[in-house]
């Protein structure tokens, strides 16, 4: 059984940044396992721009952003295997993988970083009635067809859900000559970034129909149309609001699910809200020595946030391998009153350096509200926000100084307050 200090599962933006960070901390024995035929992960098909404003202070496309990290991995001579599928990991940090060159690989690591990313919620998870015809794709599948394979999935398009990939594909398909007739969103607000509503829908006069959903799918062999209807506050369709839209293509952009099949095999405890592992301040899961970062941990809006989170995971995995990772007393972080979850869930102040960003999402839209952070019963932070929406990840920076101030604190609570 071949041994490495660190095995990273996934060669997308999370895995690449984690590898670079661990190497910078002096770890030489690193292996990245990637199932695709190239490094870079989902960024390879995200050919639009808007990546890297925080990390590089310039606006890059997805492939340009990932190439910066691929170059670093190459320069640092970090080992990676492409076309390699990890079949199993266990809590002893043994990894079983397979590819056509090595056959079955049995590997062992001192630390593992889970960076497998996420996958799209498919039609089967939606309970839309109607025909099982061709022409229904997840938005990311259509994105791969258009941007990587050079194929157009259809001409008359309706998009269900207003996730960012759906919005980006509304623009992309329009530019490639398709007629995008509507973007239909069940919720009363968009789940995508505001800038994408402007530059992908408004720029092309594509209507965004909020509080509306698809109630029937028509077509025998190929999709012929969908019936949409407005929904009431309980999200049930309102009779009399039905409208038929003829189309040959339906794109689904209805959420992303962290891909944690391998994590489960290693008995990593998952968070019911995010679908990703529960982690501490070091991005360490419930199993010592198994770390995680990126969309497999919780779904991000911005790759820049994935990169910083992955640097943290890589550095801490390195500390763990070197035996200098600090164990001991942790403070629990609770999400309540409008805050759906936090990453991390526990914080050991000894491992945070000068401070730590706690990331979270709210459950609904709040206008003119406050994000409050309580250390036990004391409100330490009270941040005014013009708008909070579920589609945009929020974060608060907790400094080392504030942990020193509340050195006996047992519990940190993050909540939304009206005043």
């Amino acid at each position, binding site marked *: 059984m071949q041994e490495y200090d660190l095995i990273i599962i996934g060669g997308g933006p999370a895995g690449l940044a984690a590898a670079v960070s661990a190497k910078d901390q002096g770890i030489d024995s690193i292996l990245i396992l990637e199932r695709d035929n190239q490094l870079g992960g989902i960024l390879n098909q995200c050919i639009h*721009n808007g990546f890297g404003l925080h990390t590089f202070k310039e606006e890059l*496309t997805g*492939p340009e952003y990932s190439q910066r990290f691929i170059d670093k991995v190459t320069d640092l001579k970090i080992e990676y295997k492409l076309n390699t599928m990890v079949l199993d990991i266990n809590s002893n940090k043994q990894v079983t993988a397979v590819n056509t060159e090595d056959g079955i690989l049995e590997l062992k690591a001192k630390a593992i970083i889970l960076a497998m990313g996420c996958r799209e919620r498919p039609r089967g998870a939606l309970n839309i009635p109607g025909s099982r015809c061709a022409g229904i794709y997840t938005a990311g599948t259509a994105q791969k067809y258009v*941007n990587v394979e050079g194929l157009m999935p259809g001409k008359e398009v309706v998009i269900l859900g207003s996730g960012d990939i759906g919005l980006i594909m509304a623009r992309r398909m329009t*530019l490639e000559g398709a007629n995008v007739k509507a973007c239909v969103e069940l919720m009363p607000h968009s789940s995508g970034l505001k800038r994408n509503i402007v530059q992908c829908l408004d720029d092309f006069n594509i209507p965004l129909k909020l509080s509306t959903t698809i109630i029937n799918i028509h077509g025998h062999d190929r999709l012929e149309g969908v019936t949409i209807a407005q929904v009431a506050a309980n999200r049930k369709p309102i009779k009399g609001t039905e409208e038929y839209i003829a189309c040959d293509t339906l794109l689904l952009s209805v959420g992303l699910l962290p891909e944690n099949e391998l994590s489960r095999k290693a008995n990593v405890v998952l968070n019911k809200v995010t679908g990703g592992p529960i982690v501490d301040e070091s991005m360490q899961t419930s199993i010592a020595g198994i770390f995680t970062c990126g969309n497999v941990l919780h779904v991000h809006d911005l790759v820049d946030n994935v990169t910083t989170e992955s640097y943290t995971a890589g550095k801490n995995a390195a500390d763990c391998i070197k035996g200098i990772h600090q164990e001991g007393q942790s403070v629990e972080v609770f999400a309540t009153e409008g805050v759906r979850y936090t990453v991390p869930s526990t914080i050991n102040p000894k491992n945070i350096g000068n401070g730590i960003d706690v990331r979270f999402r709210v459950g609904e839209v709040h206008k003119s509200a406050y994000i409050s952070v309580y250390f036990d019963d004391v409100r330490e932070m009270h941040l005014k926000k013009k708008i909070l929406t579920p589609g945009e990840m929020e974060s608060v920076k907790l400094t080392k100084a504030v942990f020193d101030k509340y050195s006996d604190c047992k519990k940190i609570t993050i909540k939304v307050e009206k005043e």
Partner: protein
Amino acid sequence: MSTRELTCIGCPVGCALTVELKGKEVISVSGNNCKIGENYGKKECTNPTRVVTSSVSVSGGESAVLPVKTESDIPKELIFDCVKALKGVIVKAPIHIGDVVLENVLNTGVNIIATKNINVV
């Protein structure tokens, strides 16, 4: 005097901007948290522009499609013509990020450049 409500697209924060106009002249931009928002507000009301991203075909490469972008922003009303200008363009591998795929697209003075490295098969 008139006002326009905009959402800044300069970064993912998406500031809600209010632009005050006198005829076609911008008097003030408010609601922005940084200089990008001020510039976007002014430009969007006078000469709106966008960076355009698309793709072209590749011959002899590891991948059949090359993603490309305009090197800088071009007038918004030229987006469709810009994508049309790329139809039929075939580039030969190897290709490096930043290679010029089409010079001076639509006489804008802006080049179309490659955004991915593609090796020879």
